[in-house]
């Protein structure tokens, strides 16, 4: 069946300045500006929000679930995990960033 809907835009919601934008869902819209207008009322009419992003779904390159074994750890890699440290919330986000695979 042909898709008669408008393009899909993925919506990312930011609850407060400095917080990460979190994916909350998607909207159909003919273009990005309209997607933002519609996303506001779908995803920010109840919870607090200071900023929204919309991204064309087609711009997203994703891995396949068939290949999710690429994420398996073949050997014990717990040495890569930083635990046992108490970090205030303000820097825990940076700590998460620091754990990106290319940094390990």
């Amino acid at each position, binding site marked *: 069946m042909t898709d008669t*809907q408008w393009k899909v835009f993925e919506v990312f919601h930011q609850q407060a300045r400095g917080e990460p934008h979190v994916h909350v869902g998607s909207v*159909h819209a003919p273009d990005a500006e*309209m997607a933002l*207008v519609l996303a*506001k*009322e*779908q995803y920010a*009419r109840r919870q607090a929000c200071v900023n929204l992003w919309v991204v064309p779904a087609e711009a997203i390159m994703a891995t396949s679930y068939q290949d999710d074994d690429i994420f398996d750890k073949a050997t014990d890699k717990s040495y890569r995990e930083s635990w046992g440290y108490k970090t205030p919330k303000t820097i825990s986000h940076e700590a998460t960033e620091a754990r990106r695979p290319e940094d390990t």
Partner: protein
Amino acid sequence: MTRTFETLLSLDAPTRQAIVDLLYRLADDAMIIGHRDSEWTGLGPILEEDIAFSSMAQDEMGHAHVFYQMLCELGQPDPDTLAFNRKPREWRCCSLVSLPAERDWALAIVRKFLYDAAESVRLAALSDSALRPLAFAATKLRGEKKYHLMHTRAWVLRLGAGTSESRARIQAALDAVYPHALGMFEPTEADEVLAQADIAPREKQLRREWESAAAPVLAEAGLVVGDNVRPVFGGRVGRHPEALSELLTRMQLVYQLDPQAKW
């Protein structure tokens, strides 16, 4: 000079009456456009728009409630009574908001765009009102109204620049509603009193500001406003199209079954 409601008792009767008149116009416009737009719930062109338009219709009723509450504090009946127990001739809304959209999306959009543009300039002006509770309320409502205008502006531009059919339909809708839109600025006896007291600007000034705000968007959408359009007046003195009576009958139906009921 700034004024709170407490000091209103010391105001002369014409000023008090002018404030009450202004609040009725603000509240009734918002209540009726809110009801009209709520008629689209379940019928919007796509799901996302259906949700957004319905949510904004609720916003409008919220704005109405703010002004009805202020009226109540000024000795008028409570908000429920004002919304559900008044006869058509007691309403002070303009005819623009009373018009049925008859499942004409272009009309619903262009009507709401013209209303949102007017409300934006009105609320901006009232944010500086010498009547402090009114200035406070106007300031608080401006954010939602800014979004409403973003939304209707986006739709007007896209319907205007869409297909030849969408263009023809929104132009026809604009032609139909524009005389009523001018009626938003129907001069009243309150105008001069409110302007002299720095409570609200004159309607003719608001109309000029509204035209400056709306005209560029209409032009960008490729839409044309006719020359010498004659305004439809009457709403501000209780003369309404028959459509308002029908709307009120439906809107007040449940309340009227038992006005004493406790909810």
